[in-house]
């Protein structure tokens, strides 16, 4: 096949979108949108990298901070939430061997996450609303700096994403507990208890012969437990959004509400409690669950220390509810007891829970030697390495003494945040995409292994390198969310920029590879409605 033919019809013309079930199409739509938003994030990241080296004229300073506000939110909601929600809405029915509870609701999740992200992104782009994702009170309501109309549209976009997330949560738990038509009545309560870990916790106090069996598989349990955190953080973000909206609507109507009515420290505690349920909650739980699923799929063997892994997921869930204070170690009004207990010691538990997941996954892989170095295996190893680098960096900054000289420096956002997200999380998601690709496309073939290798090496070295150079700048005193127009840290920023370029090359290689694998016709076909029954997950062979 010529290049043009492959571009139009896909590799060997193997991908036929007409053969896809509605659930396959929906999952692929989530992935396509997630990748497009990841492209936004990479381009925004590169623009910021350039601006950090030299403030270019085509970006104004307030636009730079609007990009900085949108960048992580588009990454979390537009990209990661899209891919994760799409994958889990497919995987839960797939692993439980039953149809999804509501296909319509799943479709609405897709529409709302896609549209909501575009709304808040464009509102930030046009109005330059830039309180950053941290939204420290009363900055989001500071109308001397920001337009209340632009801010209101921005917050509305976030709220739409959150409503889509609520639909996802309902659908996940609905699928776990419901009885499909024509099936024998399912034990809804027992399924829920198994999924959230209640029956597992009960087993700890039962004699061996009286212990209940696990009704849901480990990956489904991980998805359910991460979804509990998602429920809490969605409520916190929605509530906070409504609060900010009240101030914005009042300002639009000409009223000036007192900002001091909200206690800034209480707000910060509340907001970080909710936000950490993403960063230190569902991300870690979903990632651990995905590692376990990938390890068992790659090896075809049961997971090493399965029951401990299940218990560790429950522990991680409880830990995630009590770690938020590590974000307030530099807040002098924060009680010392919270700093030490929640900020330092509970946070240190993440070293244990994530360390367990790391070890269990590696041992499961090791127990199935010799393994073929497939794309999913190499990206999984990359993801494991990412968290192995990023989690200890986070534990170090979650220390009262070290935080005094690390807080808000590039160290926090480099070796910790960017390495965790770009290398740890994203490479895990890529591993899942590579392993699910033949299942979701009914056997389509990858266009080029060379491009997959370029993707892997550029992403791995670019992600680690960027984090490392940002971290070096941070240790020299460079702040995050700031500008150094005299080029004080240029050497590190240039090197980080080069690594950002590698990430861009990696992403383009992957994007071209996927488009060439399914063809432009295939991409369009994914967005055309399927005539098959939405209850059918995969077509009959």
């Amino acid at each position, binding site marked *: 096949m010529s290049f043009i033919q492959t571009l139009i019809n896909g590799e060997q013309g193997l991908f036929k979108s007409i053969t896809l079930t509605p659930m396959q199409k929906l999952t692929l739509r989530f992935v396509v949108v997630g990748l497009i938003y990841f492209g936004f994030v990479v381009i925004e990241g590169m623009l910021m990298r350039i601006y950090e080296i030299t403030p270019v004229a085509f970006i104004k300073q*307030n636009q730079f901070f609007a990009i900085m506000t949108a960048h992580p939110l588009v990454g979390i909601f537009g990209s990661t939430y899209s891919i994760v929600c799409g994958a889990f809405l497919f995987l839960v029915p797939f692993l439980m061997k039953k149809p999804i509870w509501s296909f319509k609701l799943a479709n609405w999740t897709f529409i709302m996450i896609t549209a909501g992200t575009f709304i808040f992104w464009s509102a930030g782009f046009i109005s330059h609303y830039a309180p950053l994702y941290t939204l420290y009170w009363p900055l989001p309501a500071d109308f001397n700096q920001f337009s209340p109309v632009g801010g209101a549209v921005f917050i509305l976009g976030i709220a739409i994403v959150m409503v889509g997330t609520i639909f996802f949560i309902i659908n996940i738990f609905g699928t776990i507990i419901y009885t499909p038509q024509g099936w024998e009545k399912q034990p809804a309560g027992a399924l829920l208890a198994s999924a959230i870990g209640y029956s597992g916790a009960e087993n700890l106090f039962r004699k061996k012969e009286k212990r209940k069996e696990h009704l849901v598989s480990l990956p489904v349990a991980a998805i359910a437990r991460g979804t509990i955190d998602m429920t809490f953080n969605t409520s916190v973000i929605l509530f906070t959004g409504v609060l900010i909206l009240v101030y914005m609507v009042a300002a639009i109507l000409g009223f000036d509400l007192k900002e001091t009515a909200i206690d800034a420290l209480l707000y910060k505690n509340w907001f970080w409690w909710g936000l950490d349920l993403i960063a230190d909650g569902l991300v870690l739980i979903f990632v651990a669950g995905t590692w376990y699923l990938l390890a068992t799929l790659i090896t075809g063997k049961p997971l090493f220390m399965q029951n401990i892994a299940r218990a560790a997921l429950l522990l991680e869930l409880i830990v995630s509810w009590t770690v938020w204070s590590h974000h307030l170690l530099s807040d002098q009004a924060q009680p010392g007891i919270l700093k030490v207990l929640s900020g330092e010691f509970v946070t240190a538990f993440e070293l244990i829970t994530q360390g367990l997941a790391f070890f269990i996954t590696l041992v499961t892989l090791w127990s199935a030697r010799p393994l073929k170095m497939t794309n999913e295996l190499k990206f999984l190893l990359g993801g494991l390495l990412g968290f192995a680098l990023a989690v200890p960096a986070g534990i170090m900054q979650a220390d009262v003494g070290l935080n005094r000289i690390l807080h808000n420096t590039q160290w926090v956002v480099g070796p910790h945040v960017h390495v965790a997200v770009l290398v740890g999380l994203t490479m895990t998601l890529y591993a899942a995409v590579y392993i699910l690709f033949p299942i979701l496309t009914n056997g389509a073939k990858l266009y080029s292994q060379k491009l997959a290798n370029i993707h892997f090496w550029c992403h791995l070295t670019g992600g680690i390198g960027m984090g490392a150079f940002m971290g070096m700048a941070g240790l020299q005193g460079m702040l995050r969310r700031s500008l150094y127009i005299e080029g004080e840290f240029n050497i590190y920023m240039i090197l980080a920029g080069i690594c950002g370029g590698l990430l861009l090359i990696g992403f383009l290689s992957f994007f071209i590879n996927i488009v060439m694998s399914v063809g432009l016709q295939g991409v369009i076909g994914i967005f055309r409605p399927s005539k098959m029954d939405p209850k059918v997950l995969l077509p009959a062979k």
Partner: protein
Amino acid sequence: MIDSTMVLKGQTIAYTFYCIVIILLMVWFALRVTRGESKLIKPALFYSWVGFLTILGVSLHIITYNTIPWSPMDLHRGNYEPDKTFKITVEDHKFILPSEKLIIDCNDIVLFDVTSNDLTYGFGLFRQDNSMLFQMQVIPGHRNDILWQFSKSGVYTIRSTEYSGPKGVFMIEKDVVEVIGCEELTEQ
């Protein structure tokens, strides 16, 4: 006396060493997992790993508390009597200092008491080479105070360490803090 430069050097060495080890370990694993035969791993190794992680997680904080001089002082600020107090106000993206220059004698314990009248800001002291001496958050409606003992002569710049909107990016008071007299003490 141990200062932030020394602590950061120690951290750089420890973390770099760790990164090299973990990267080499993953490379070794990736090479070996494609060869050899499957072997059962004993649970004892797993429990040893759990024990190691627990000790590591807890000991980090115990070690830093006992070696970083500002850690205990920070957590028990009420037990210390400052030699000098500077009351600083922040408003409209501007630091309002009690005097043009804040002069500190060597080894003095100084209390910086910073109040914000509007937004959440940061308060940090930076050396001439832009490296950080310390920082804290400045929250409106709350007391934001930090104790610091200065053991080296030098001139420091105050900079906001928290984003407070585009207007706050250049909240910098250059060379306004000066520590004097440490050379004389060393000579004696």
